[in-house]
Each structure stands twice: as C-alpha cells, then as structure tokens.
C-alpha cells in the first residue's frame, strides 16, 4: 500500500542525504587539511599544526548524531570537528593563518578553534586537560534541567592522564550527559599505546566507573554515527555518560613538524592502513547503494576543493589582528 511504503521511502531519502552529506564533510576535511599542510610548508601557518587526515570518519560520523544546541569540545587535533560543526572553512583557515577574521580572532591558532554560537567550545592544547571541562558543560546542562549533551573528543594518550579518570568518575556518580569519545589512533605522538598503557582496550576503563562503553570501527563513518546515536540517547534521555573507543588511524605525522613514519611505525604499516581510508569506504558504499556515481563523488570533491581554495584565499587576504588586540580579552568587563 502506498501509505505503508511512504514513510520508509522518506526515511531512505533522509538516510541517503545524510550519507551524501557525510561524504562531503569527510572530503572537505581531507582537502582542507591537504591545503593546510601546503600552507604550513609555505610558512603561512606557524606553530604546531596537527592534521586529521585518516580520522575524518570519527568527527563526521559522531557529530551527525548531535543537535545544534549540544556542546562539542575537543583536543588540539580539531580542524575536522570545527568544520563539521559548521564553522566556515574561511574562519577556520583564517585562524590557522592567525588572522583577525579567524574563528578565535587570530589569538587561538590551530589548537584553539572556538565558536560559541555553534557550541564548539574549543580546541584545547594540554593532553586530557579539557576532559573535565566536558563534564562541566554537561554539569551545567543538568543544573539547568536541559536535555543537551556534551560530546568530548580526545586521543588514546589522554587516557593515561588523571583528568580522564577523575572526569569519568564524577560524571558517572553525578549522571552527567556527556559522551567521552576516545579517538584511538594507536600513537601518542611517537609512542605506541601498548608501550605505555597496561590496558590497551580503552573501552575497558568504563568498567571502573560503572559506565556504558562501546568499541567502534573508526574507519566506518556509519558505524561511528550509530554508536554515537546510542550514546547520545543514553545521555539525553537518561543522563548517563558513555565511553566510546573509536579505533582509527592517522595517516600523517603527529604534527606538521613530525615524520609520517620512521622510528615508531613503518611505512608499510601506514600504507596498509591507508587501504582502510574512510572516505574511499563511504564512497564505495554510496556507489554500491546507487546513491552516487563516480561522477557524483567527483563533483562533490570539486565543490569542496573550490571551498577550500576560497578559504585559503580568504585567509591569505585577511588582515592580521590590530596591534592593540594583544591586550584585549585578557579580562572581561
């Protein structure tokens, strides 16, 4: 019956739209990061610059499960999360360039992207230091009786930090609506996780705090999306935190100043991992599902390349912050 089949059709449509959007977001991050690497090599971007290439499915899949009034907070490898949250590529690239038009007015840089309107509560530069802040944002939600959640991104190396354990404990005791999303890319800078962690299955830590946990394939955006949806539901409806261990891999060095491989991992390992490229995987799926042709994928790619090119131009042409900006925003009025 037509009436019986209509809802699934519209649900299918919404799903394929979502998948197409996810592919676009992943491609946007990939192309953005490639251009950021070029700009870094040219000296347009300074300091530390940690690229997200290889991990795109994590930000894209997880954040698709959020509402616009939910909070997001991240570590210093957060260009991807900022873009997915809807901060314009122009404003993110301009921030990397240190320009006045950047999303933190050129005062934060690559590691400190912020947009309060988007509830993107920053990139933070001390490993694990922002994990309690996530619990605090969730505390505020609960304090006000809201139903928002807070999604917190951090790497597996942060799990060895006390702040992680203190936060998980208090958020479990106080039933805070927070999702701890550990992006396990296997290396804290140049140190393999198994060399420094007694428990290498990060999700197991949840047992210590009577918390729900899931281990997810981080190269599969849809798997990340579904796991995050379950976690969001627990947080939104039950005020229960979740620990998600999302297993991923970084195709680049720790930062732009670090080697891609060498003493801590082999070229062969990196090449092997690249066969799991999350973008290729989702593109394949969309083609298999008949949602997109190769031409369709190429058209999206061309579109995001143009967006990133425009962002680089915008960043390049934007002014530096005025000299007096040095002394503004030290204290609020």
């Amino acid at each position: 019956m037509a009436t019986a089949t209509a809802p699934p059709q519209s649900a299918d449509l919404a799903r394929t739209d979502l998948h197409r959007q996810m592919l676009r977001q992943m491609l946007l991050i990939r192309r953005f990061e490639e251009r950021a690497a070029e700009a870094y090599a040219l000296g347009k971007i300074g300091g530390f610059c940690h690229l997200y290439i290889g991990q795109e499915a994590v930000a894209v899949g997880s954040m698709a499960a959020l509402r616009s009034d939910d909070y997001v907070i991240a570590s210093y490898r957060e260009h991807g999360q900022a873009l997915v949250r809807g901060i314009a590529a122009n404003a993110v690239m301009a921030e990397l360039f240190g320009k006045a038009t950047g999303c933190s007015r050129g005062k934060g840089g690559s590691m400190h992207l912020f947009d309060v309107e988007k509830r993107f509560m920053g990139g933070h530069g001390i490993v694990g230091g922002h994990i309690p802040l996530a619990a605090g944002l969730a505390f505020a939600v609960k304090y006000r009786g809201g139903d928002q959640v807070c999604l917190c991104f951090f790497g597996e190396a942060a799990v060895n930090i006390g702040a992680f354990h203190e936060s998980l404990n208090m958020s479990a005791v106080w039933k805070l609506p927070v999702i701890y999303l550990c992006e396990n890319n296997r290396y804290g800078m140049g140190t393999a996780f198994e060399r420094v962690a007694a428990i290498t299955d990060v999700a197991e830590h949840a047992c210590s705090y009577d918390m729900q946990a899931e281990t997810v394939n981080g190269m599969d955006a849809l798997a990340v999306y579904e796991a995050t949806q379950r976690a969001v539901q627990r947080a939104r409806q039950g005020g229960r935190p979740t620990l998600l261990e999302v297993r991923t891999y970084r195709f680049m060095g720790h930062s732009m100043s670090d080697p891609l491989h060498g003493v801590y991992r082999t070229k062969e390992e990196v090449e092997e991992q690249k066969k799991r490229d999350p973008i290729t995987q989702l593109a394949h799926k969309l083609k298999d599902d008949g949602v997109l042709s190769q031409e369709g994928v190429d058209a999206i790619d061309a579109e995001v390349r143009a967006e990133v090119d425009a962002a680089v131009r915008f960043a390049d042409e934007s002014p530096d912050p005025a000299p007096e900006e040095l002394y503004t925003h030290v204290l609020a009025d």
Partner: protein
Amino acid sequence: MPTLTYRDALNQALREEMQRDSNVFLMGEEVGIYQGAYKVSRGLLEEFGPQRVVDTPIAELGFAGIGIGAAMAGLRPVIEFMTWNFAVLALDQIVNSAAKMLYMSGGQIPMPIVFRGPNGAALQLSSQHSQAWETWLAHIPGLKVVAPATPADAKGLLKSAIRDNNPVIVLEGEMLYNTKGEVPEGEYVVSIGKADLKREGGDVTLICHSKTVTVALKAADTLQEQGVAADVLDLRSLRPLDEAAILASVTKTNRAVVVEEGWPHCGVGAQVVDLIQRDAFDQLDAPVLRITQADTPMPYNKQLERAAKPSPEKIVAAARRVLYLE
C-alpha cells in the same frame, strides 16, 4: 554593626550571593554534609540543596575543571579547595583553562568562576600544609587574586569575586577564620583592586596582605611606643595591584617595608618593590626592605616554625633599619 567571625562573614557572602543568583553554586570537598572543613559552608546545603552545594571526591584537578566547564556554559561556580596546598593539583586547570579561555577564544568565552580556600601557614602543620601560594597565582594574566585580612573585607571581596566575570582567586587566611570584626549587613561589596589603609602614620609604610596585616598592625603598635608612626597598607588585591595607593603612601613616608607570608624569591613583595623603585625612586630615603617566610620548607618544630614566619619583631626591626634608627 554586627560582629562576625571571618568564617561567618564568608558564609554570609556565599549565602547572599546564592540567594541573589541561581547560577551561583558551591562545589568542593566536604562543603555539603560535613558543612565545610573550616565550616565556611555551614547551613548552605540545608538552604540550597545538593544541586547547588556539591560534595566532590578528592580530585582537585577534576572538580576545578568541571567548575570551569560549567562557567563556560554561563554558570557562576564557587570552587572550594580544602586548602590551597591541595589546589596545586588543579593548577593546570586554573592556569591553562580558566585564565586563558577568554583570550584564546578571541573574547567569546568569559570565565565567571571563583576558586577559594585557606592559604598560608597555620600552626605546626609542617611543610606540605603550610604554604602561601599568592605569588604563583598573581603571576598569571587572566586571573584576579584577592587576599582579605578582615571579616568585612572577606565578605565584601568574596561578593565582588562571585559577581566578577573573570576567574577570581580568593586566598583566605587559615589563621583568620576565627578572628572577629564588624561586618556590614546585606549588600556590602569591596571593589577588587583597591588597597586599604588599615592604619595611618607618616614615618614609614608597612605593606602587607592577608594574615600579615595583623602582624603589621602589632608591629605598628610597638613602633608607636617607640615614637614611630606607621602607615599599614593592606593590599587586599594582589592582581590587580593598587599601585596608586602604594605610591601615595610611600610618597608620603619615603620609606617602606613589604611583608608577606610567602617565600622571598620572586615574591609579591618583589613586585611591590619593583613598582616603588620605578615610580617613587626620588621619594625614597632608604632601600625598601622585605619580610617574608624563611627561604625554607616550613618546619614542624614550634620554635623553628616561629623563626620561619614573619613576626612583629622582624617588621619592627626592618622599619627601624629603613628609618636608620638601628
């Protein structure tokens, strides 16, 4: 005007601000059921409930960070540390998160949070529990740091701190909780950044804050008996520093002794001396001297502890030296 203890003046400030603004909440170890390790939060759990008077585990870094996260969302947390010695565990959060959030977000995220608790030595608590942390904290741009010496200032400064849109460190004197003084009822705020001339003289300026105000006032009594009239200037706020008040007094007396509970190296007094030599050099009739804790960890032994701390005798001797009476 009612007479209150320092602890009850703080309690009154907390109660009034929590009544005034439902965004204000208190979080820390033993603040609720136990009524506070130093009873500053007595009765607050009963009045405001466990949502706003939150007992934490012993996890200073964690709950300081949770407070900061709540402030990022617009709440106005008051984070109590059982003592500032334990707050050192939370310094990453205070320095890297609270103090820098507004700046590195390009002005998007104000940080209306108070970190408070007892600071400085008490009696025979030995090395790890007898430390004055103001130098560490006042060093950091993005923080405000106050250190009230009297019950009235404790109330007025804590109320200002809670209403401030910046992270404010409130250093309470562990030995001051039982001291008494007149405290105005109801709306009484003391502006952050204003020193207070606790005693007026004209011969020498004794610059002090927190517990050393009491010590300096005793020294001023002794000096008075010796015919020397001292200005006792209570800084009250260490960041911002009331530079105008310091310079006004030194311009009048031409001599100064700076007193603090902390260690000498890079201390608050060093900052004050820097100001005086720079902006009142021509007014000085003697080098400025400093009285600090001895440059050692605090010993347990009573005699040694006494020798380590600033005392009226040490201040009197220093004042006589800058007056060339020795």
